[in-house]
């Protein structure tokens, strides 16, 4: 795949996000008026092609989860547009969105919290079918059994409760539920960050197998760059609500441009006792998204900060297969 581009050709594209903004108000004072806003997602545009994995990476609190949720209308965006399969879904009513919801499914981060402890696996995995189809109980049971097999669980698991499963198994249940309606697009919100490394690998491989089997498109959200590197065809890097670098995975990995992305790559631990890292590649904390720094938001922590960085916000630029928002380029 050499012609991977950030702005995919229209026919190839499944999801497009244009200038998306989500500011969460902070209410204060006697009348609960907004006194400030958390700029969780601030003017982000991206495009995801059919059957690819778009890896979205960034530190905690950079807005990647919020972005993922706005795509599924779990959070209503403040402005911008979300276009799914050529249809603007930003402002359609939740009722109209129900039909589209079938095609956009989620796998959440915490496998221990995302399954209702009072429901059996059959009811959990079968729930989307109950909501969206008229299948009889016995048809649903058959479908659920099929799904369990697909994700590598056994038939006797059908009547168990979530607390009887390990983290990895629970995440398989979550995946089975997300697959139930045969969606085209799955938002994977840190699907492996709560799991052991060995289990992580199993789940990631399962996700890859399912992707080719069912022609799925993934929005893969993670703070773990090594995982994103393994999974993604396209990588987007977010910092404080902004997309700072985006492009074809190989290109982003081989020719990392943004100083923040470089720092992220440098902070991946190398399992070699002889190799001693230089310590943290970037210093300081993430500034508050309530009052982000002027100009380039990364400038207070950037080793290459120039005068222009403090005053002028850099725009995403570069060739279409690799864009970066940095004054260095």
């Amino acid at each position, binding site marked *: 795949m050499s012609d991977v581009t950030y702005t995919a050709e229209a026919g190839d594209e499944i999801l497009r996000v244009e200038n998306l903004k989500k500011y969460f108000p902070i209410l204060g004072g006697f009348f609960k008026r907004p006194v400030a806003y958390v700029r969780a997602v601030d003017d982000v545009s991206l495009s995801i092609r059919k059957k690819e994995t778009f890896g979205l990476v960034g530190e905690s609190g950079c807005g990647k989860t919020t972005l993922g949720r706005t795509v599924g209308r779990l959070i209503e965006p403040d402005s911008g547009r979300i276009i799914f399969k050529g249809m603007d879904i930003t402002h359609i009513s939740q009722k109209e969105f129900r039909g589209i*919801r079938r095609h956009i499914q989620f796998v959440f981060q915490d496998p221990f919290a995302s399954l209702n402890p009072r429901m059996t696996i059959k009811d959990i995995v079968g729930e989307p079918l109950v909501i969206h189809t008229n299948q009889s109980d016995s048809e649903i049971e058959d479908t659920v059994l099929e799904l369990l097999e697909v994700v590598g669980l056994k038939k006797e698991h059908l009547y168990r409760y979530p607390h009887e499963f390990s983290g990895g198994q629970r995440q398989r249940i979550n995946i089975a539920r997300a697959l139930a309606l045969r969606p085209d697009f799955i938002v994977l919100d840190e699907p492996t960050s709560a799991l052991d490394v060995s289990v992580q690998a199993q789940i990631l491989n399962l996700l890859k197998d399912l992707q080719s089997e069912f022609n799925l498109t993934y929005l893969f959200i993670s703070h773990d760059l090594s995982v994103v590197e393994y999974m993604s065809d396209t990588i987007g890097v977010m910092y404080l609500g902004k997309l700072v670098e985006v492009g074809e995975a190989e290109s982003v990995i081989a020719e990392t441009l943004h100083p923040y992305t470089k720092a992220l790559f440098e902070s991946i631990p190398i399992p070699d006792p002889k190799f001693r890292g230089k310590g943290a590649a970037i210093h300081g904390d993430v500034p508050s998204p309530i009052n982000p720094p002027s100009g380039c938001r990364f400038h207070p922590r950037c080793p290459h900060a120039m005068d222009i960085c403090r005053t002028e916000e850099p725009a995403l630029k570069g060739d279409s297969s690799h864009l970066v928002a940095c004054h260095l380029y």
Partner: protein
Amino acid sequence: MERVTDFKEKHDAKIKEIKYSLFLVRNSPLTILGALIILILILVAVFAPYIAPYDPEKTNILARLKPPSKDHPFGTDDLGRDIFSRVIWGSRISLQIGFTVVFFATAIGTVLGLIAGYFRGWIDEILMRITDMFFAIPSLILAMAISAALQTRSIYTTMLAVTFVWWPAYVRIVRSSVLSLVESQFVEAARSLGASNRRIMFKHILPNSLAPLLVQMTLDLGAVILVAAGLSFIGFGAGPNTPEWGRMVAEGRNYMTTAWWTITFPGLAIFITVLGFNLLGDGLRDILDPRLRR
């Protein structure tokens, strides 16, 4: 994949759950005692006509204020009615009041609590201010006022009055667990599947807030019976001749110095019933405690 058909294998998880609950109950003798008291009480109430030796409303002036004896194990009252029979029949009234009030208070409180906690905003604000108003007035006084306003005296007016003051507590309990559950990831997951509000409220949130509700209901059965007995004691309950425990204590209090049995046995019946429900409720709280469960 073929299906699991064996019953034991199919319901393995549920069987394990029940076994574990029984194991926890076994280790708590007070819970068993409470459950036993309630069980006996229910049996007594159901089989009252067969157990009671006399008609509870039959007066016999010739045998008035007789001390406990073989013929009258609990003695007789000032009108010669058999106190043993009256206490047995009284269990029906008390349980009836307890279950009815708790049932309706829970039903009203659960629905309103779900709505308030789930939708928040102005509806929450209105509902919670109304419950605040109820909490600002002593419930017994309010129940008395309602009974007085209703004019007629029967156990049904008592039920109505007590239900009316009782539901706000349930709104609070349900709302508080809804508030935390609404934020939980499995509710968000259900929303991402396109589940309707009603489905989320009744399939996802309510079953997960049942534990505190069940404990409160059990404890309240005792409390309601006590309040109802209190209401009849001061004359706002069942009509004359009704074998209601609170009323029996009230009628017997003029003779307590000379005929101690007139108030002792109905009083003990109230005491044991309330104790039974409290022991069971406390036990349930321990058994349903999520920290004890896996």
